């Protein structure tokens, strides 16, 4: 009571409820009565409201306990179980119903239509894949292209090999003899020893089987090369050139065209890399 008197101005109309539940109007202090009458019309209002609240309190304690039927609990729990049931079972049930229809005669038309569509799609895909596989399935392909080689006067050209590839041509060139060029016009080439040795190796070992005439020509070629290296390049005499010319003619006469173009293993690898 003292607490309420210490701060009367903090009352709000709703706080009158506490006063009503605790004391009658006659039991209120003067300040409390003044406060109550500021919000209510009369003491009678206060008394009626107090009576109602006391009735409510009494009714609350007198109210018999009510309870729901057990069926309500069962229904509610059943609803919870159904909600928690995995959805895939429902999906499987529908699939099973489709797979085992009650009247299969109703299904033959859509089944036939689906089968035809499936066959068409599968056939189209197979044809399409076959076409693309034939075009793109290979690792590399050799295509015949025409290579323009500048005419060289000193060239002792080999007959066209049919595989006019750069690498093949290079291999061909390595087997050529020194060109019988005019002595004054073209300075005497200086055939490197390694290149000549390579020619010999290719001709003797890496190349496919050759006939004896070609082998002898190669041997003669080696001899000419050795003589050329040994001789002073500035003073190469006519006899050497004439001999070289003779040997070269012999070699060209006996050398098979395919052998001239026979590529080595490294050339084939380079060819494959270029194609890839």
């Amino acid at each position, binding site marked *: 009571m003292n607490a309420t008197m210490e701060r009367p101005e903090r009352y*709000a*109309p*709703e*706080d*009158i*409820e506490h006063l009503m539940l605790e004391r009658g*109007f006659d039991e209120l202090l*003067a300040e409390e*009565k*003044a406060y109550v*009458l500021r919000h*209510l019309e*009369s*003491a*009678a*209002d*206060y*008394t*009626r*409201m107090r*009576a*109602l*609240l006391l*009735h*409510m*309190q009494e*009714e*609350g304690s*007198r*109210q018999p*306990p*009510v*309870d*729901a*039927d057990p069926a*309500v*609990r069962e*229904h*509610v*729990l059943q*609803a*919870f*179980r159904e*909600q*928690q049931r995995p959805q895939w079972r429902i999906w499987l049930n529908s699939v099973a119903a489709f797979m085992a229809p009650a009247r299969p005669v109703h299904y033959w038309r859509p089944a036939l239509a689906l089968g035809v569509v499936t066959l068409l799609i599968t056939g189209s895909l197979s044809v399409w894949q076959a076409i693309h596989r034939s075009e793109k399935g290979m690792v590399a392909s050799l295509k015949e292209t025409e290579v323009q080689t500048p005419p060289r006067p000193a060239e002792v050209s080999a007959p066209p090999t049919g595989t006019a590839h750069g690498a093949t041509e290079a291999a061909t060139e390595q087997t050529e003899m020194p060109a019988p060029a005019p002595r004054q016009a073209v300075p005497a080439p200086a055939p490197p020893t390694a290149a000549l040795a390579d020619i010999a190796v290719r001709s003797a070992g890496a190349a496919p089987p050759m006939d004896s005439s070609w082998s002898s020509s190669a041997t003669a070629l080696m001899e000419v090369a050795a003589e050329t290296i040994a001789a002073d390049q500035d003073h190469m005499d006519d006899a050497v050139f004439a001999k070289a010319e003779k040997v070269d003619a012999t070699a060209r006469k006996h050398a098979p065209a395919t052998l001239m173009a026979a590529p080595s293993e490294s050339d084939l690898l380079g060819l494959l890399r270029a194609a890839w």
Partner: protein
Amino acid sequence: MGLFRKDPENLSDERLMELVVRGQEQAFATLFDRYRRQMLTYFHRMLWQDRERAQDFLQELFIKLAQQPASYQQGRPFRTWLYSMANNMCKNEYRRMAVRAAAVPALKVLNNHAVEPDGGARVDHEHFNARLQDELDKLDPDHKATFVMRYQEDMAIKEIAASFGISEGTVKSRLFYTVRKLAAALPEFDPNPKQRTAPATGQ
């Protein structure tokens, strides 16, 4: 009990609701057992003291909870959230009944409690309840729900405010004016009728 580390009876409502969201049936059953009487009483008081209807609403309320447990807002007190749902259901029922009564006047719900108190305590009690219910039905649904929650469900002001999503001051004000209106509408229960017209005199 194997699903719980603790007895579910000892868990808070909010913790049980988290388990319900995860699909724990035992937690759901515990919540139902904990609140079935309260909610049934609330529906009984709010829905014209119709027991069958109250049971239907109780079942519907918890079926909603079972079907949409994720609608519960984590961190909110479960009790106020449940009362909020129940109150919304009652308001929907009022609207439905109002439409039905307007369409078919013969079906209008009229609780004509013309029982005069005969001095017996039991009859007086029934008469008071009947008259109070009549007057409550005339109130705005929110005011009626506020009154029922406060004086019949013994809910705290704070809980009522949380249920309605309003301030505590609004709840207090609503209660004050509802009590004053009901008291004016039920003069026959005035314990001192002679004071009814006597002007108050500040002493």
